[in-house]
């Protein structure tokens, strides 16, 4: 396999609504930025991978074809991937394979999502209709008629974890919300930069037990793109390549009855283990300088510490209390603000997380820069109770 580098990247702002752009127009903005960053134009792209999650959001089946057209990439090969919240991670994985295999030298990996055209006319807001669109991804015969949401699925997992290990506590979860909203204040693309207190989180309205309003990420519109290149051509395009040095993926049984338990996410454990093995990492907390973990909910960020082997199983809550994951801690998590602070533009999210880590590795993260960052982890998860996980280890040269 050939080495694969990120040689260019771009992202739109993550916002609740881009009323003045369609999904393919958002994709265009991110793609243009990424090409400019790599110093290339569309002719230099050999192939593309698009991460787009929900066709109901876009109001279009096969939206990838319209993105490809709008980017002027006609006759170049292209494929769209969709693995729920892990769509961005999966797109990166396929893009990596395109280049590492030697099939192509330059691959555009682009994620886009535009959810908030869905609208509930009665309550005059988007979210219940967005959730209705998402519920078509639950088993249509047995699960969909129960009216559950992503929050109730992950809520069940967090409750099960708490019953088994006594954490994450309400306070630990609230601290994650405070941290990620605060981190977002340093990130110019973030949707929800806020200085809030643990008290604010605890007092916010209940959404789904054990999550309150501030424990949840928001639905976001945006697009993020990276350009992947083989080692041979990478140095022509950048003097700061960011190498994908580890990649792991796993897809668990979607029907929870087929799993041994719901208090760990085994797809995350398998994916992280594989990514670390490939990158030669044996002690992640020492060998990683920062991580972007999929914090769709505060409690699942804490579970992710365990699933990514930052600590022993059941010990996730202690990394919050001892400050390890805080901005000035040993292993800062979600300096972008994560899904909670920066936003969750589903298909784009995994690519936004990658963009964030790459910014640090290029020493371009401004106020939130991790000093001398060398290596970072991206965890991209999705589906009922974490069906999919993709983990990437990113590393700068030297």
């Amino acid at each position, binding site marked *: 396999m050939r080495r694969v580098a990120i040689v260019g990247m771009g992202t739109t702002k993550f916002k609740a609504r881009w009323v003045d752009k369609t999904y393919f127009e958002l994709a265009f903005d991110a793609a243009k930025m990424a090409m400019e960053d790599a110093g290339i134009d569309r002719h230099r792209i050999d192939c593309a991978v698009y991460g787009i999650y929900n066709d109901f959001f876009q109001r279009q089946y096969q939206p990838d074809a319209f993105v490809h057209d709008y980017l002027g990439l006609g006759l170049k090969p292209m494929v769209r991937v969709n693995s729920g919240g892990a769509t961005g991670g999966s797109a990166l994985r396929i893009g990596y394979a395109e280049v590492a295999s030697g099939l192509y030298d330059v691959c555009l990996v682009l994620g886009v999502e535009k959810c908030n055209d869905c609208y509930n*006319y009665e*309550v005059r807001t988007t979210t219940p209709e967005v959730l*209705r669109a998402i*519920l078509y991804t639950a*088993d249509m015969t*047995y699960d969909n008629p129960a009216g*559950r949401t992503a929050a109730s699925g992950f809520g069940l997992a967090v409750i099960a974890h708490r*019953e088994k290990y006594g954490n994450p506590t309400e306070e630990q979860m609230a601290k994650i919300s405070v941290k990620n909203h605060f981190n977002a204040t340093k990130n110019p693309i973030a949707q929800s930069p806020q200085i809030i207190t643990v008290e604010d989180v605890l007092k916010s309205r209940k959404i789904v037990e054990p999550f309150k309003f501030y424990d949840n990420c928001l639905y976001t519109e945006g697009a993020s793109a990276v350009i992947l290149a083989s080692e041979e051509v990478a140095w022509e395009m950048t003097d700061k390549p960011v190498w994908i040095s580890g990649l792991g993926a796993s897809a668990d049984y979607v029907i929870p009855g087929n799993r041994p338990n719901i208090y760990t996410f085994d797809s995350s454990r398998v994916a992280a283990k594989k990514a670390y093995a490939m990158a030669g990492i044996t002690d992640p907390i020492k060998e990683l300088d920062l991580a972007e973990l999929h914090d769709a909910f505060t409690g699942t960020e804490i579970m992710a510490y365990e699933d990514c082997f930052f600590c022993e199983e059941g010990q996730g809550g202690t990394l919050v209390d001892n400050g390890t994951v805080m901005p000035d801690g040993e292993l800062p998590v979600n300096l972008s603000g994560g899904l909670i602070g920066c936003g969750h533009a589903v298909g784009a999210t995994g690519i936004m997380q990658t963009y964030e880590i790459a910014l640090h590795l290029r020493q371009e993260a401004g106020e939130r820069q991790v000093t001398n960052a060398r290596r970072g982890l991206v965890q991209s998860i999705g589906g009922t109770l974490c069906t999919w996980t993709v983990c990437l280890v990113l590393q700068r040269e030297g």
Partner: protein
Amino acid sequence: MDEREREKWYQYHHEKYGIPLEYLKREYEEELSGGGLIDAPLEIPDKMDVLYKYTYGQQSRFFRELRENKKIYGAKCPHCGKVYCPPRAHCSLCYQRTEWMPLKGTGVIKACTVQYYTTSTFIKKLPFVCAYVQLDGTDFIMMANMEVEDVSKIKVGTKVKAVFRDERHGTITDFYFRPID
């Protein structure tokens, strides 16, 4: 648009999408009265909609038993002995055909939460319990429709029984679970 054209616009979209007229007026009155600049983003009502005559395939008997006989059936693998409910025609681990097996319709809550927010379709039902139930005699958990007066009384370990509705359609909602007192 003049008032007559606007009324036609409301009527057309009301009939096409089923959105009540008052909601349409609330959202679009300003735009249709000429409130939008020519270069400003234009939003329109729309809907994605498909009708089906869906086949349950090899799971059909499960739904006939619900509808006709008020019975819940599981599917047992003759090789490993695992009992699936929701049923499946093949054991996914042994690749053997499963056999139908009647269940008692009682079970236990293995995981549960309370929803205070949900999708458009279920908003009027809030708050409600979202739970995984393991039916007695099965090795599986299933997402359960629960109907309970006091959502705070539902806990892991609560014993439940299936109650069949008078009107049944051959869908999983032909029954729901209630705690056994």
